[in-house]
């Protein structure tokens, strides 16, 4: 089978060419140009160097672009397997001056607490329709609350999600979401819950979106945080709302350090929660010594995970785990699956061709939530 020549190579063959030819090429294709399992990134302008910055494990970072002879167009082509989704920025060097920015030729942008990035979506990747507003889905309600926490010695804000048609005569499972504001802001989690409940994929549930104050301190196995969740938040919500009484009705979730917060809270209070939903959890460990390469913020994480690996316990019955294959945490996550399973935990593990970012975590929510709290789809035959 002959592979069709890349658009940028066809352009190269026409060089030297007038500026108008390059104008038309860029206007027609934009950036990146995705052709089969190849992606070509473009930049137009004067610079001494232009590079693609990304965090895809396995690809060189930075990825240097080359100027097309006689033009101000820069390009680099890389592999991009089907279904991939990559966040990236461009970096230019002019003399000693470096600048990093989103791809001006690419309108597709993802947001996070760290700012925004350009998005390169491969063939086969589609933004799931259940992440977008569905006018037919009845909206749930977000209620602002504040809990006076003795454990954290502060007033802790919490946003509570009540499903559409909330009825105090019913009983609901409880989902506690670490990095709650970010899940709402960057992973569209209210829209996702509204849609998945409307589609009967997920049971109507009550969610507590809890933002941290100092996540690098509070999330890696921090006793006051765990005490707040287990001894203050859950009892208060149980008192206030008709919640399913029992661990099977309670799930802790989180991504990255939030995943460690969820796991370490469950380990400190075994049997209180029935399940965990961990997305790209920072499950970094060492087999000898403490040279983990993650910097000082990871020290408590590594201590906690090493201790767990030495003596695995079964704090919950079920764990849904997801991780991006392009992120450095893929190996620790894969390595922890058998550890959890040997401890007797039912693990549902899934991978996506994506990175350590909020849209990846958004895209895994249906698989995770529908497994943890399945909706009544199996009961409904219209």
């Amino acid at each position, binding site marked *: 089978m002959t592979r069709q020549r890349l658009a940028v190579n066809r352009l190269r063959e026409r060089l030297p060419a007038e500026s108008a030819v390059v104008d038309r090429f860029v206007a027609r294709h934009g950036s990146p140009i995705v052709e089969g399992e190849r992606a070509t990134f473009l930049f137009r302008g004067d610079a001494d160097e232009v590079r693609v910055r990304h965090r895809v494990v396995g690809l060189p970072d930075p990825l240097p672009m080359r100027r097309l002879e006689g033009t101000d167009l820069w390009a680099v082509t890389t592999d991009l397997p089907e279904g991939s989704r990559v966040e990236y920025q461009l970096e230019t060097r002019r003399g000693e001056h470096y600048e990093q920015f989103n791809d001006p030729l690419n309108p597709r942008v993802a947001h996070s607490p760290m700012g925004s990035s350009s998005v390169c979506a491969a063939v086969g990747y589609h933004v799931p329709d259940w992440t977008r507003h569905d006018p037919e889905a009845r909206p749930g309600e977000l209620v602002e609350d504040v809990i006076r926490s003795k454990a954290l010695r502060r007033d802790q804000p919490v946003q509570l999600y009540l499903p559409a*048609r909330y009825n105090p*005569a019913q009983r609901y499972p409880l989902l506690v979401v670490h990095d709650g504001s970010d899940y709402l802001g960057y992973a569209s989690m209210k829209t996702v819950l509204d849609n*998945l409940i409307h589609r009967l*994929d997920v049971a109507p549930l009550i969610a507590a979106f809890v933002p941290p104050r100092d996540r690098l301190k509070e999330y890696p196995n921090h006793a006051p945080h765990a005490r707040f969740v287990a001894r203050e938040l859950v009892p208060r919500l149980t008192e206030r709302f008709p919640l399913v009484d029992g661990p*099977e009705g309670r799930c802790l979730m989180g991504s990255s350090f939030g995943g460690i917060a969820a796991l370490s809270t469950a380990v400190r209070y075994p049997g209180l929660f029935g399940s965990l939903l961990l997305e790209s959890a920072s499950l970094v460990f060492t087999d000898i010594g403490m040279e983990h390469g993650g910097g000082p913020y990871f020290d408590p994480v590594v201590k906690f995970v090493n201790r767990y690996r030495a003596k695995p316990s079964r704090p919950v019955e079920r764990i849904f785990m997801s991780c991006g294959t392009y992120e450095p945490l893929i190996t620790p996550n894969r390595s922890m699956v058998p550890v959890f399973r040997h401890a007797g935990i039912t693990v549902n593990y899934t991978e996506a061709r994506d990175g350590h970012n909020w849209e990846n975590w958004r895209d895994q929510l*249906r*698989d995770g939530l*529908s*497994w943890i709290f*399945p909706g*009544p*789809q*199996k*009961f*409904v*035959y*219209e």
Partner: protein
Amino acid sequence: MRTIILGPQRFMTTAGTALRSLGVDGPVATVNAGWEEREDDVGELDSVLGGRTRHLRLYHRMLDVITKDEAFASAALAFRDRHEDLMALYRLRLHKAMEGVYAVQRRPPSPSGEAFGALDDAVEGVRRLDDWYSRELRDLYRELDAAAPLESSDVVGWHRGELEAALRDSAVLVLTGGHVGTLLRALRLFALRVPDELPVIAWSAGAMALTERVVLFHDFGPRGASEAEVYDRGLGRVRGVVALPHARRRLQLEDRERCAVMARRFTEQHCVLLDDGTALELRPDGGLPRGARILGLDGAVHEVVPR
């Protein structure tokens, strides 16, 4: 006894035709408790059934009972908890048992060709599991009946009286689709007795509720194929049938090995596919009519040819 079971009515409405085919006059009693809080949104249903409807409103009556009869409400809540516990254990065991069935089924034949009846025995294990669940559920119902006898509830008694009178004057009973669990709960609470001589038309969840044993299924849920599971007893008016509404949309019919396992698991019943446009009037002896589509033991879809 005249009974017509139909496929889903959303895209292809056949209920009006079925009603006319009965050639009866008089009010049409409807049970659409499976629609839950949408139970009163009956405009479309009224127009399909020709405006002669008498809605029994079982869902709203059930809410009324729960609100007014505290003893029953509390016993029902306790029952629900225990039923959910039982279902959780059943699903856990079922998942493992079905894994065993498929593993045996996928195994390439040995050089000797000897299979030792392993597949039959594995399926039999699943059938025993289904029976265990059904027995335990029956015991739970018995305990519920002892804890909160419905005969002693004035509220239930009042509703039952109304319903009996409404049914007595009706020419036909129609059961719609919806949430089959809610529908069964409502039917059970009011012990709706459907006289043999009263013609019945039912579709989707309503058709499931007419059978002896209600089986839940959905191969295309968000987590992929999940196993069909026995849920509860139905009214038992339709015998020897597992009703499978939306079969094309909900079952991997092209996976013949999987379908074969389902047919063998429920071998004492016909697994009947109720898709858009399906209309089956049962024979006077209760049997399926010619042309009814069923899953065969070979996993293929066959049409019934009555002897």
